[in-house]
């Protein structure tokens, strides 16, 4: 992959590395140090090794979508995530009421809809960050209805948030290392015996550094995440999610508040994940982005799925146009409405 995407340095004054040499600094972990000697090809190879999902052929997965009917709840040839009868009510309001939805493995699926359609609520329900009033969810042929939100990552599904959750007072590299699952040193007892987790920590740090190089954030490695710009935080959040080694990433509005220059590079990263066999589901408002990168689009309105299909089909779907613009949008107004 060639590198001509811009690097953002919005806060040049904060970009100098803080003094970590002080004996009183709370310096997490073992220092393997960044790997400046690594070439772009090596970094890409390392990236491919870190994120590749085995046994998924993204090209075949996309091709298989050609036979899927363009209708809500359409069955997919190889679904990774299936939700049935998922209902979530807030008092008298039914925020989500989805009969059936399947997400195809190995492709990029966009979840769109007007404001208040229930996209983020559905997202929370699919990742168990919220509990539905009814319904079942199956991920990778395993029922995840009773899996706690923090165990979802261990099942191979990881999410990001609409309001970016960079951990401000931790450095970029600490943010990254946090993402690794199954860390021995995260047990209270083992934490006080560094020899029990030092080796694993070093491997994790190398993986984190490889990812940072791929996302072109290695120069910010030891900066506090709180000093990054909005776009850099989105990148960091995505990179950190990959530390989990997921099969499926769920991105909640990955482009919100990102400047146009960085948008292109973010888009490239999302398709890059798909090309490694990862399944991507994202919520987005920006239709240009949806058209550009998604392989399949699911449209929600008023809590229900009203349309599905490849991106090109969505603009012509009357149900979608009605949901966004109102059902009488191109009929002439009568006198009552004009007043």
């Amino acid at each position, binding site marked *: 992959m060639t590198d001509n995407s811009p690097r953002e340095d919005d806060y040049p004054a904060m970009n100098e590395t803080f003094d970590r040499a002080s004996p009183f600094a709370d310096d*997490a972990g073992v220092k393997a140090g960044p790997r400046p000697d690594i070439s772009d090809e090596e970094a890409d190879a390392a990236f491919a090794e870190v994120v590749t999902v085995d046994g998924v052929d993204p090209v075949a997965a996309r091709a298989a979508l050609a036979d899927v009917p363009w209708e809500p709840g359409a069955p997919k040839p190889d679904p990774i995530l299936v939700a049935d009868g998922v209902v979530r009510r807030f008092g008298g309001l039914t925020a989500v009421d989805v009969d059936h939805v399947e997400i195809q493995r190995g492709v990029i699926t966009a979840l769109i809809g007007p404001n208040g359609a229930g996209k983020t609520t559905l997202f929370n329900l699919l990742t168990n960050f919220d509990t539905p009033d009814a319904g079942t969810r199956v991920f990778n042929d395993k029922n995840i209805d009773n899996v706690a*939100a923090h165990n979802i990552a261990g099942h191979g599904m990881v999410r990001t948030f609409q309001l970016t959750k960079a951990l*401000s007072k931790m450095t970029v590299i600490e943010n990254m290392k946090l993402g690794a699952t199954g860390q021995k040193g995260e*047990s209270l007892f083992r*934490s006080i015996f560094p020899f029990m987790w030092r080796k694993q920590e070093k491997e994790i740090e190398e993986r984190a550094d490889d990812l940072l190089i791929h996302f072109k954030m290695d120069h910010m490695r030891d900066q506090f995440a709180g000093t990054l710009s909005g776009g850099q935080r989105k990148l960091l959040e995505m990179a950190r999610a990959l530390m989990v080694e997921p099969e499926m990433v769920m991105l909640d509005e990955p482009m919100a508040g990102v400047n146009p220059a960085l948008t292109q590079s973010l888009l490239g990263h999302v398709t890059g994940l798909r090309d490694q066999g990862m399944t991507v589901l994202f919520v987005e408002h920006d239709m240009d982005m949806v058209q550009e990168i998604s392989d399949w689009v699911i449209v929600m309105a008023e809590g229900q799925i009203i349309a599905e299909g490849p991106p090109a089909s969505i603009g012509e779907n009357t149900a979608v146009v009605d949901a966004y613009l109102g059902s009488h949008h191109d009929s002439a107004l009568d006198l009552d409405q004009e007043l």
Partner: protein
Amino acid sequence: MDYQAIIESLFRGLIGERFIVFALAAIGLNLHFGYTGLLNFGQAVFMAAGAYGLAMTVVTIGPAVNRNTGLNMSESTLFWVGIFMAVVVFPLVLALLMGIPTLRLRADYLAIVTIAVAEIFRLIARSPSLDKWTGSSDGLTGFTSTFYDLSPFTTTDRYFFNLFTGNQFFLVLVGWSILALGTLLCWLMIKSPWGRVLKAIREDEDAARSLGKNAYSYKMQALILGGMFGAVGGMVRAVGFSVAQPDNFITDVTFFVYVALILGGAGKVFGPLVGAALLYAVLDSSDTILRQLVANDYIPESIMSGTQVGQVRFMLVGLGLILLAAFRPQGIFGNKEEMALDDR
């Protein structure tokens, strides 16, 4: 002016038993508040748990068990059982009691519950109907002989530049050893992946959860562990003053621990130590200085009498805190850039 008395009081504050008590409690609070973001406003109750865990086991519960079971444990056996009760059992039960209902909720609920439990515990311990078990408002005494019997120092001599009696010096040495061990443990834990998860929970619980960390469990671990540090502090206090008394653990105590922590820098390993040393050096030495100034008529009776010194020194500490908030809000060890990140 008696300059020697002033210097002695300064050093007693810097390294003496009250410093040790508050530094230990502040290490615990640092785990709660500084690293995990738990708003514990009841650190005093953990300290009380330590004091009463020891005192009740040796003086009231232990003998009752002996009477009813014929176990016949000696006082020194009871003392070591009491230490286990004080350091492990009492704070563990308290932390579970407070944590189970609140740690799944927003941070402020823990704050409400801890401050309430601290007062409930103190008022129960004070209650005359429990006089048989807690000694009510007089508290319990007579549980320290096993400890001071171990002292290699003679009680009649003075040690360490005449600052301490033999017993005091023994307590201070033991206290410093515990403090060093505690700081080392805390440092090891915080720089491990375990500590990294705590910081992530402080920054954003949902982010930690999305990355596969069981936030509830980690918050509970931090609450228990920090409570245990508080209990050790309370136990040292009870042994040092040879009494476990309910009004030694009023709500103010919690806020003094907070003052020590914030003074030194919350979220820094050495913050609690330096904060507590500084707080008690200022409190103790200003007390002596003011008394000397009043006694030698440098301050006329019309401005301040000797009996008002106790209040005035707290005013000085308050002034110091205002200056700190204005000029160094991150505390002594804090990082200004890190602090500024909150404002973005």
